[in-house]
């Protein structure tokens, strides 16, 4: 009996359906204190004084903390540049300046209100254009003094937080020899992850160590970052995971955790809980960065691409977090779908006095694909050839390389994806039959399975069940509650009911790279397989003795071990476990895994912090939209995904990931946008920030292509992240098709659409 490919119910479903599941915000204790933060009201300024005397004497207040009370150090994922509390300089609206822990949330808020703040507001670098003008104020005047968290320093200067440059003299030659040059400029706005659970954290200081409760995508990163901020060894920080009310990349680095931790210490060890309200959460969330990109393509008469130039600017906000890696992602993406000839890529991450951005689901890929696919449509239009045909003619093939020299072994899956799509929605026919005000779009993409290491310990229990100890987190995706559970069950012929997976605890479980980049099922699943093989070996050892048979003559069937071909000899795992425990000791085994480094050419670009594109998967999307001629609103009427997944472990889970990702992508394509005016967000509540609702969303038609990966668990690769990357692309292409006018901004706004309609009407 196999559980692979079965839509088993996720193991945490019942708890979540009855209200029993505990999220961080539900944490309670008799001595719990409630924290609150004073956040900067201005985007840039010099702090002259923070007077906390009045706040300290208010009833119920147990501690007040500012930069003065914490170690004088800087922290950061890639670069140590971020203070816990701003002490001298404020760099974005919402930056923490002080914290209070009190007996009740009201008392904490009252104390925050009583802190007297004297800030001299300074000129804010409100956007990338301002940041890049000559003599612009520097967001970090002291940038030179910053140290990388590990390894060598990388290209960064002034308001440039990180820069990748790949150049090649032949690019200019290509443009000189071109018969046709097609040029575009694109922009996209910020997208807020908008998980329904605003961030929260509980910190407890006890016996000289910090314990942190948090529903977080990457507990070990919290451990390391808190240790940096509080200047202790990482092992002095223990992070305990809880159910996560959604993350989408926003819960990968620290949010409230170090504040809760330090306040607990200052309040004598009582647990301190911090909870963002929705506005705080929006103001400080590491949202998807806004970006601009100029693409120029040189073509010969036949439309072959001779060369391309691509200049991408990404808004980093005030502190870089993990963003310093991202210019490399642009570089890899640039050669991952279509052949591009000689290419120049300049990707810059730009500091501004705005909230730090971060890696939202499909980081860089979402806007990159939108830009690239719109550019492909533009070229096809210029050449007067069919948009789909043009893509097919330029697809990368198996054996072709990315720009870093990494060979794509299975890139032919892209072509196969187009074929599958053609079966579902024949392109020419769709185009011919589309109604008035309708438009169609097609797009292709390649995406990674993140390679960060993971580990698993399997313990065989005396009742025949298996406990999986891991710090892998289930952010809701089902990667643990379905993926890991089913993979472990499959190895032992057990059912999902026989598998218990622990919640993450950095004191107990081995290192895990967090729920990011669709890695958990692939990486941790593989680690589980390695552990399972070892544990099985131990089980057979013990069973061989009990059955008086040779180890090689044994088999494991449905959670029992017996001699091959003799069903009467079968012994339940529980009996074997019990025997083992009292003879040789309890049985357990561990496994670790990370993707082996891929050969690549390190000299191909400068600033390549993220050197290769591990375990790629391949994607083709199609959308049909309808434009409302009265309002300019756009509605998606049909959406099809062809996705290569390696191997489907749980079909309902895969469907949920794809549907959910596409809807987030449609949200960004049509409604979701954090706009910045004067270095401040315009959208500051869910009433202003429009999230997609059930009424407006199509049911996505999903076609999965299975192409088992030799090292993946039962062939599985990453699934959760990538279905978002092509949604804005196909929608922008489809709207452009509907109106015969280019839409080169994400989101596509009704205002822009209506302008195009009015123009069209005028032309008759």
């Amino acid at each position, binding site marked *: 009996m196999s559980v692979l490919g079965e*839509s088993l*119910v*996720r193991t*945490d*479903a*019942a*708890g*979540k*359906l*009855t*209200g*029993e*599941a*505990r*999220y961080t*915000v*539900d944490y*309670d204790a008799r001595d719990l204190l409630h924290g609150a933060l004073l956040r900067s009201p201005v985007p840039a300024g010099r702090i002259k004084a923070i007077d906390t005397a009045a706040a300290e004497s208010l009833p119920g207040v147990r501690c007040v903390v500012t930069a003065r009370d914490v170690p004088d150090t800087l922290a950061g994922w890639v670069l140590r540049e971020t203070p816990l509390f701003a002490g001298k300089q404020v760099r974005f609206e919402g930056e923490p300046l002080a914290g209070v822990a009190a007996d009740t949330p009201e008392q904490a808020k009252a104390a925050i209100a009583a802190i007297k703040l004297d800030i001299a507001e300074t000129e804010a670098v409100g956007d990338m254009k301002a940041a890049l003008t000559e003599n612009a104020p520097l967001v970090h005047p002291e940038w030179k003094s910053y140290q990388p968290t590990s390894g060598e320093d990388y290209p960064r200067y002034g308001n440039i937080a990180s820069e990748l440059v790949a150049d090649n003299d032949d690019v200019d030659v290509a443009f000189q020899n071109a018969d046709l040059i097609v040029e575009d400029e694109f922009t996209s706005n910020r997208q807020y*992850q*908008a*998980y*329904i*659970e*605003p961030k929260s954290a509980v910190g407890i200081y006890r016996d000289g160590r910090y314990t942190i409760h948090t529903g977080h995508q990457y507990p070990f990163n919290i451990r390391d970052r808190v240790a940096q901020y509080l200047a202790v060894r990482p092992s002095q920080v223990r992070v305990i995971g809880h*159910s*996560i*009310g*959604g*993350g*989408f990349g926003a819960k990968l680095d620290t949010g409230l955790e170090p504040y809760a931790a330090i306040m607990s210490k200052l309040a004598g060890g009582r647990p301190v809980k911090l909870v963002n*309200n*929705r506005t705080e959460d929006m103001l400080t969330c590491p949202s998807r960065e806004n970006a601009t990109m100029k693409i120029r393509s040189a073509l010969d008469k036949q439309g072959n691409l001779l060369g391309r130039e691509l200049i991408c600017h990404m808004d980093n906000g005030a502190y870089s977090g993990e963003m310093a890696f991202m210019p490399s992602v642009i570089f890899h993406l640039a050669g991952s779908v279509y052949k591009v000839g000689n290419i120049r890529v300049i990707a810059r991450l730009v500091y501004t006095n705005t909230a730090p951005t971060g890696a939202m689901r499909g980081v860089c890929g979402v806007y990159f694909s939108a830009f690239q696919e719109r550019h492909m449509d533009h070229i096809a239009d210029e050449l007067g050839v069919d948009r789909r045909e043009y893509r097919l003619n330029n697809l990368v093939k198996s054996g072709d390389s990315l720009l870093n020299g990494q060979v794509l072994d299975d890139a032919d899956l892209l072509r196969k994806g187009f074929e599958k799509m053609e079966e579902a929605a024949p392109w020419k026919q769709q185009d011919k039959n589309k109604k008035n005000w309708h438009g169609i779009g097609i797009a292709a993409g390649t995406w990674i399975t993140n390679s960060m290491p993971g580990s698993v310990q399997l313990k065989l229990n005396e009742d025949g069940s298996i406990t999986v100890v891991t710090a892998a987190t289930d*952010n*809701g*995706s*089902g990667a643990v509650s379905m993926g890991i559970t089913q993979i472990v069950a499959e190895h032992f012929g057990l059912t999902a009911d026989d598998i218990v997976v622990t919640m993450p605890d950095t004191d107990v479980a081995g290192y895990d790279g967090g729920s990011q980049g669709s890695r958990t099922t692939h990486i941790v699943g593989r680690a589980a397989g390695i552990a399972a093989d070892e544990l099985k070996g131990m089980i057979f050892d013990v069973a061989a003795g009990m059955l008086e048979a040779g180890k090689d003559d044994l088999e494991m069937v449905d959670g029992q071990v017996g001699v091959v071909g003799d069903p009467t000899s079968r012994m339940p795992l529980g009996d074997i476990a019990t025997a083992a425990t009292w003879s040789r000791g309890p049985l357990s085994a561990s496994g670790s895994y990370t993707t082996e480094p891929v050969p690549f050419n390190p000299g191909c670009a400068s600033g390549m912090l993220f050197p290769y594109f591990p375990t790629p998967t391949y994607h083709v999307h199609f959308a049909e939209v309808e434009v409302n001629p009265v309002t300019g609103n756009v509605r998606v009427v049909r959406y099809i995904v062809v996705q290569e997944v390696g191997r489907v472990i749980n079909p*309902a*889970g895969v*469907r*949920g990931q794809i*549907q*959910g*990702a*596409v*809807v*987030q992508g449609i949200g960004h394509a049509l409604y979701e946008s954090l706009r910045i005016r004067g270095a401040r967000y315009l959208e500051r*509540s*869910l*009433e202003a920030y429009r*999230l*997609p*609702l*059930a*009424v407006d*969303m199509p*049911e*996505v038609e999903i076609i999965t292509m299975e192409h088992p990966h030799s090292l993946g668990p039962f062939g599985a690769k990453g699934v959760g992240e990538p279905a978002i990357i092509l949604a804005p692309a196909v929608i922008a292409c489809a709207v452009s098709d509907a109106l015969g006018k280019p839409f080169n901004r994400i989101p596509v706004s009704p205002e822009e659409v209506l302008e195009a309609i009015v123009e069209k009407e005028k032309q008759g």
Partner: protein
Amino acid sequence: MELIFRVNGRSERLELQGHETLLDVLRNDLCLTGTKDGCREGECGACTVLVNGRAVDSCIYAAMAAYDADIETVEGLAKNAGLNSLQNAFAESGGVQCGFCTPGFLMMLTALLDKYPHPDRDLVRDALSGNICRCTGYAQIEEAVARHVEQRSGE
């Protein structure tokens, strides 16, 4: 001020100041943390509970306004036998991912199904206009309702 009401069939008597929201009273005073706080502005629906059978956003509902009322929360759905039919349908259809929106969806749908036992898909979608799910993209939630309706009519 005294608040007397029934929550999931049990009588409760609490001393309040008067300005508290129903959400805070349920979560903080009664420790019924299944009802979630997602925005406190009536936008996300995570805090939906039933007040005398009507689905309300408890984050913008004054607790004192529930005086003498019957409140139902997600904790009251599962009976001794386990998950109820709607909850089961959610589990089987994959209508739950992170689960933070789930209690609100369940309560809104409970109110809807009470009034319209056989809602078509458009009605379900319309009724869910005040509930945001960021994870699922809604399809499997809609399917869960259909599954529940089907199973119930099969009984």
